[in-house]
């Protein structure tokens, strides 16, 4: 009967723990599951279940405005991910590597965008663009996204580098490699999983950002989340659900690709 005995650390077999987990899962996933389910609802008002249809997917895919918004989102996300990953990686690396005066305050400031309310950041951005006389549009959205993504990438890279053995760089340098060769041959391969994680974070942050994007967008620069918001204000049709479901599937797929690449590179290089 030893099967029934619960070990002190066997939390997954304790009833209260299971109840907690059950609740968490329901709260986390019920809205998403219902959102996806109702995207197949054959009802314009989308309040009660009327029957299965793919009609609203067709409708969403045929919606030119939704197309344009989606394309805008992709352009912004791709640009901001590329730029913020490069800059964030450089920042994270220098925070790990160098000791300089006032490093503490500087690090605190770098992390500020992570902690300050998004609305403050949004207002600050708009004020900034007004002072430099930059018309609001795709460019301003992209710049804002780069600005708030950099610290996230930097934090990820810095955490990754904390486990790095500096002697590896010294060994490379000692064996005749230049600093540049050492970076690309030794440091960069080690950073790669961190870069991937940082880039993915930046991409998803950009793709679904609403507040900052809403403030910094101008005419003709509607992004996917903003478009959905305006559709919801009009009426909650299954078309909105369908569009959101596409976004969910897309993010999930990206995450899975990233995890797969990461696990493979970890299997190869043990780090």
């Amino acid at each position, binding site marked *: 009967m030893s099967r029934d005995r619960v070990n002190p650390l066997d939390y997954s077999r304790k009833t209260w723990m299971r109840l907690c987990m059950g609740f968490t899962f329901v709260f986390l996933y019920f809205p998403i599951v219902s959102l996806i389910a109702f995207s197949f609802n054959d009802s314009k008002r989308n309040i009660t279940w009327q029957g299965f249809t793919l009609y609203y997917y067709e409708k969403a895919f045929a919606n030119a405005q939704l197309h344009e918004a989606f394309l805008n989102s992709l352009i912004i996300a791709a640009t901001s991910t590329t730029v913020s990953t490069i800059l964030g990686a450089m920042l994270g690396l220098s925070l790990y590597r160098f000791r300089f005066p006032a490093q503490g305050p500087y690090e605190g400031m770098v992390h500020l965008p992570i902690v300050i309310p998004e609305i403050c950041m949004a207002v600050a951005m708009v004020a900034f663009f007004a002072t430099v006389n930059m018309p609001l549009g795709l460019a301003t959205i992209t710049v804002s996204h780069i600005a708030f993504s950099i610290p996230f990438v930097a934090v990820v890279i810095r955490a990754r580098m904390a486990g790095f*053995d500096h*002697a*590896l760089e*010294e*060994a*490379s*340098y*000692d*064996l*005749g*490699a*230049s600093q540049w*060769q050492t970076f690309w*041959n*030794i440091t960069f*391969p*080690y950073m790669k999983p961190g870069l991937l994680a940082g880039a993915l974070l930046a991409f998803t942050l950009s793709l679904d950002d609403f507040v900052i994007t809403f403030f910094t967008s101008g005419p003709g620069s509607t992004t996917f989340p903003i478009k959905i918001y305006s559709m919801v204000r009009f009426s909650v049709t299954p078309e909105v659900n369908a569009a959101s479901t596409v976004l969910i599937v897309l993010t999930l797929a990206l995450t899975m690709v990233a995890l797969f690449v990461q696990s493979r590179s970890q299997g*190869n*290089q*043990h*780090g």
Partner: protein
Amino acid sequence: MVDNNTIISIRDVVKRFGSTVVAVNDVSLEIKQGEFFALLGPSGCGKTTLLRMLAGFESPTEGQILIDGEHMEGVEPNKRPVNMVFQSYAVFPHMTVHQNVAYGLKVTGTPKSEIDDRVRESLSLVQLEAMAARKPDQLSGGQRQRVALARALVKKPKVLLLDEPLSALDAKLREQMQIELVHLQKSVGITFVIVTHDQNEALSMADRIAVMEQGDVLQVAPPSELYEYPNCRFVADFIGKMNLFDGTVAGIKDGKVLIRVDEFADQLSNLVLPHNEHAKGEVGIAVRPEKIRLDENEPEDQQVRLKVKVTEVVYYGDESHLFLESTGGARFAANLKNEARDTHAEIVSGKELWVSWRPEDTLVLSS
């Protein structure tokens, strides 16, 4: 004054970190071509700092370093004719054993055909040919260290620097690697400079040893000279085990020195020792445990003899280490060879014995 045989010369080198930490304090050393040289000292004495200055990772605050007759000031680590084996081995985790060893040749633009030959040769030197395709995480600690060795040796450096290369290995493997390292060094003929805090390691491997303490080099000598003729109290105490006493020179007579040791005074008024230039004023008197003879009865033939009581016995199988105390309070450590099966059983705490040694085995150290 420069000897053609000298490969490294360290001249009046000082290294300070900030304004307070003096890691290396005015060190001058000459290391000869083909020598197995050890830097030995307790933790924090500046061994690693000195080695890193040779490799080029630190630059001396004062003084000069010459390698093969050339000034190394301003020469970057990747341009120096030396290579280093790191304490953590620093084997590149994302490369195979072959790629690790080839790395140093590849980055300096060695032709591909030559790389393969030299890598194979270097791997066979450390008996790792069979593991060429493996990744470091599929190797044991000892094998990883061999990769680090092969990777440095493939560059054919003039000097190989090793920072505590054996400290991460278990005792058995360490002993085996000590022997292998010595063989390797003799077969490749490259000068090895090894850093260690383990005196046995230094004694068993090195041709010459520099003992360091708090940034100073106290003595540079071959192992046997260091062990038998330490030049100061620190070296005497640091290398091997030593019985140390405080003494005062009482006089010189017929080419002999008379030294009074308070702890012996109840049994021996003066130690009569061969003349020694250190014998002035306050001195340290030292004798190795294995030089001490143990007898049950008073040994009439020995000039230095004291009656003692056994306070503790530590059994090691082949030997027992005895701790003894005289009535005057002098404490001795002595070794007892367990020559017969029941030798050890006769020696128990509280037993009275005689210790004695030859006057010429006594060291007189200036304080």
